[in-house]
């Protein structure tokens, strides 16, 4: 079964084309994607207001419908990360679509806290160590991760960010190990005590600053939810109002999404990272996203990344573009990096001159490489139209709205 994205207007990407009823110019082709197409990941690039989010919502809507058409299987889990954090209308539409398609367990962050401190110690350390990877030297990063490791291992795993913050106060971790009294804990106490108060304070301040903005939104409570349990989730990262925090939050959430790949349920999942530009400039988020795109296919996780330009995908822009099986380009002023993905075609170009009597004479000619996708077409795409590039083929489509809109 294919999820229909829109009407094919032009191009040679026949692999996604589905013949429809007779249209104005003979049989009309629609563009339909399978879940397998999505697991090769998808990048949606386009200027502001060109229809990126509507395209993503259409994909969400159609794949939710696809799940509805297969009642024997668990619904495709859909996690929509809005990195700009402003799109209330889109959030509402997402909720309506999920309700309409029979999705039961739908959650919203930050309104409902996520269990950000669940999991093994190794997973926790991995998530939190990402927070200390923003510009620190490798030595200081290793130092911070070691202190975090010691703090996480002291007593029971922390249930909340404030628990963890208390542990990284100078002397607290060492005291906890001393209270345990075992030979191993005493050895670890010595290790914890070997770090100076200044070193513990640097970790404390980093976590304290994060807690000041996210509060208890990552704490484990009865109302909190986990990514593994939900059918659909909308995560709103405050990329516009608090860009610094947004990068930390995005890094944390992307690390949790990466853990889904190791989940034993192998449930099909679609992750939409909309407005990635808001966090893409942060090296950690960009690298995390690239890692996800490169490694999650076999786990049945499809990543859809929406960004305004190629540059806003951050340091890992090349990795992201080249590992995405499908690229959807909405209107943009500088489309060269995108249309290169569709490759070139050979065109014979004659050179002619006009002699004194006005006769045109063919003087020479050559085989010229031209972009397969006309650059001016991408520059002038109307709102709601896009160019899809997949495996060196392309198509120009008019994207349909999600049906409940």
């Amino acid at each position, binding site marked *: *079964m*294919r*999820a*229909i994205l*829109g*009407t*094919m*207007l*032009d191009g040679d990407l026949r692999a996604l084309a*589905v013949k*429809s009823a007779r*249209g*104005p*110019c003979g049989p*009309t082709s*629609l563009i*339909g994607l399978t879940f397998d197409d999505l697991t090769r990941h998808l990048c949606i690039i386009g200027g502001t207001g060109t229809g990126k989010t509507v395209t993503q919502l259409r994909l969400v*809507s*159609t794949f939710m*419908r*696809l799940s509805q*058409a297969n009642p024997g299987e668990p619904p495709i889990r859909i996690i929509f990360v809005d990195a700009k954090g402003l799109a209330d209308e889109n959030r509402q539409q997402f909720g309506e679509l999920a309700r309409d398609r029979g999705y039961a367990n739908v959650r919203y962050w930050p309104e409902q806290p996520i269990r950000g401190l669940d999991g093994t110690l190794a997973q926790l350390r991995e998530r939190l160590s990402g927070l200390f990877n923003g510009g620190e030297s490798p030595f200081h990063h290793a130092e911070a991760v070691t202190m975090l490791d010691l703090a996480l291992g002291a007593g029971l795993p922390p249930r909340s960010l404030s628990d963890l913050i208390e542990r990284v106060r100078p002397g607290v971790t060492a005291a906890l190990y001393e209270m345990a009294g075992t030979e191993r804990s005493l050895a670890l106490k010595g290790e914890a005590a070997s770090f100076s108060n200044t070193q513990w304070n640097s970790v404390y301040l980093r976590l304290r600053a994060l807690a000041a903005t996210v509060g208890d939104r990552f704490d484990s409570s009865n109302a909190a939810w986990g990514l593994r349990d939900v059918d659909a989730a909308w995560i709103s990262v405050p990329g516009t109002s608090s860009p610094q925090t947004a990068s930390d939050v995005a890094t944390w959430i992307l690390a949790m999404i990466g853990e889904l790949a190791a989940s034993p349920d192998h449930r099909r999942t679609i992750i939409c990272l909309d407005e990635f530009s808001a966090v893409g400039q942060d090296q950690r988020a960009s690298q995390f996203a690239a890692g996800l795109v490169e490694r999650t296919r076999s786990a049945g996780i499809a990543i859809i990344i929406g960004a305004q330009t190629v540059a806003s995908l951050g340091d890992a822009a090349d990795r992201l573009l080249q590992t995405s099986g499908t690229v959807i380009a909405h209107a943009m002023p500088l489309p060269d990096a995108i249309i290169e993905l569709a490759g070139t075609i050979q065109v*014979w170009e*004659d050179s*002619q001159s006009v002699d*004194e*009597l*006005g*006769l*045109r004479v*063919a003087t*020479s*000619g050559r085989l010229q490489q031209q972009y397969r996708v006309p650059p001016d077409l991408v520059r002038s795409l109307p709102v709601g139209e896009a160019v899809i590039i997949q495996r060196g083929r392309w198509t*120009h489509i*008019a994207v*349909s709205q999600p*049906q409940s809109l």
Partner: protein
Amino acid sequence: MKNASGHHRDENRWPLPVLAAPRGLREITWHVVALLTLGAPLVLRGGWYVLAAASVTTWFLKLNSPVLRRVALWYLAAGLVIAAIFATPLDFPIAIAHDFDWSRAPEIGASLTFALDVLFDLSVAVCSVATLLAFDRRSVNRAAVDLRVWQRQQVRRRQLLRGWHRVNSLPEVIQ
């Protein structure tokens, strides 16, 4: 140059002319006029030689159509003047009429007939060359025209499909 896939362009060879039947009233009219113009000097006595001379002169002197038309008028005027001097001006049209049936006017002397014939033949030949030079000889770049037609058709096709897309609600899932 020829290889397994057929003829290929060779820089040392001239491109083959594209021969196409005339299309439309304008092109047909031009072709009829060109044929008549080429035929007119040939029916005259000695027309071949004069036409060849006029063509070679035009080629070497790089003359254009307006200049040639003026030269033709000068030849006619010269004929009238010579006829007026050595006989009467009306003898010039008589000599012209006899020129078409390759006969000689008995009332005009042989040398005057020859001179008037040559002047008239020259005038007609130069007019013919001028007309042929004015012929629209621009060659059509078929590839460019085909490309433009294709692009226009694609634009129209996209417009129609956009309109169809606006009014038709697509299914969300297809088997």
